[in-house]
Structures are given as C-alpha cells and as structure tokens.
C-alpha cells in the first residue's frame, strides 16, 4: 500500500510570499501530524488532527502558520508572508488510531527554502 505522500518535494519562495504544502496520509489513518525539521535537528511538532478536528496546534510558531484537514484525509499547511527562518523541511505523519503507542508513519517531507 502507498505510504504518506507530500507535495511539492521542494519549494523555493521569496520572502513575503505565501506557500501551501500538501499531505496525503495513509488511507484510513485517523491521526495526522505536521512537524518542522531544521538542518541537523530532530523534527519539532507543529500541529495534530484527529479526523478533521485540529486538536493541538500548540507547536505552530506564529499566526502566519495555518493548517487544515477539511474532510479528514488530505491536509494542507499554509505559511503566509514567509520569512527566512521558515526555511526547513516540513514533515507530515499519520497514524492509524489515536491512543497509546500508535506509531506514526512519515512522508518524505517538503524542503522549503525562503530567499
């Protein structure tokens, strides 16, 4: 079966532009996560969806970051007015069920470079 897919794989944006990053989770997975990974660092949590409900957005760094999952499957992470510090790899992960120990499966990530 297909894994988590993300698009685009690479995105170059000029400072001040808006970007939208897409995540297609594994079919049937209830939970969906977004993480940000800076070079040489571990992933850092941004936000979490259970179906279409955004249950935790405590990791979003500013109000320029917005995520949605309107039908409980595909999710989009939007960054408005991009800044250089937004340059990172954005990872999406999904898991089958909420609850203890449900492992998260990651996509390949979108590498965002803000110039």
């Amino acid at each position, binding site marked *: 079966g297909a894994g*988590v897919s993300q698009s685009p794989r690479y995105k170059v944006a000029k400072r001040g532009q808006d970007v939208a990053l897409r995540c297609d989770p594994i079919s049937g997975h209830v*939970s969906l*996560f977004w*993480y940000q990974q800076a070079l*040489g*660092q*571990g*992933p*850092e*949590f941004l936000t*979490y969806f259970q179906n279409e409900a955004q*249950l*935790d957005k405590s*990791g979003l760094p500013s109000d320029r970051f917005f995520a949605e999952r309107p039908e409980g499957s595909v999710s989009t992470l939007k960054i408005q007015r991009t800044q250089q510090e937004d340059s990172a790899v954005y*990872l999406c*992960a999904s*898991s089958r069920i*909420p*609850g*203890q*120990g*449900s*492992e*998260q*499966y*990651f*996509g*390949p*990530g979108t590498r965002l470079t803000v110039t």
Partner: protein
Amino acid sequence: EDQVTQSPEALRLQEGESSSLNCSYTVSGLRGLFWYRQDPGKGPEFLFTLYSAGEEKEKERLKATLTKKESFLHITAPKPEDSATYLCAVQTVGGFQKLVFGTGTRLLVSP
C-alpha cells in the same frame, strides 16, 4: 518540560564493530518511546516502540531496550547499509499523541 537527549551526536564504526546509542529522557509521564531511522533526504522510518521499563525489542541487527530514564539502541555487527541518523522520540501522557524528538545520532559504518 519534556526533554530528550541523544548521545553521541555522531558515531563512526567499522563494519562488524558493535556499539550502542543512548537516549535519555525527562518527561512528566511516559506513554511510549519510539526509535526511528532517517536517511538523507527522506522522512523518518519507524523502527520500534517501547512502553515500559525492562521491555526489549529486536529487528535484524538492532535491539532496543528501555529503563525508567533512558533507552539504548544496540547495533550488533553493523553493515554499511546501517549508516543513517537514528532518532529517539517520546510520547507523553497528556500530550495528545505528539512526539518529542531528540536531535539524533548520525551513524557511519565503514566497510
């Protein structure tokens, strides 16, 4: 605040030279500890989940163990294809399901 610390930052081994990677954690309540492997340009790949102290899991040349304060990833007779960054993460009680990651250990296995 929940914290995960991995050591060493980087490790260079000869093929066949066994070693261990360390992950120490400080959390309010542990729901699970996860090990992932990450190759350059790719997303993390799930390896193991450990839930309670004393638990061990094995997969090929890898064995993960858990105590109340740390986890070890033992690599037995590594091969060059084991070269990757190994990430440790914790899931905590009350933290929904988010993972808190360490910064990883970069492993290079030379033939």
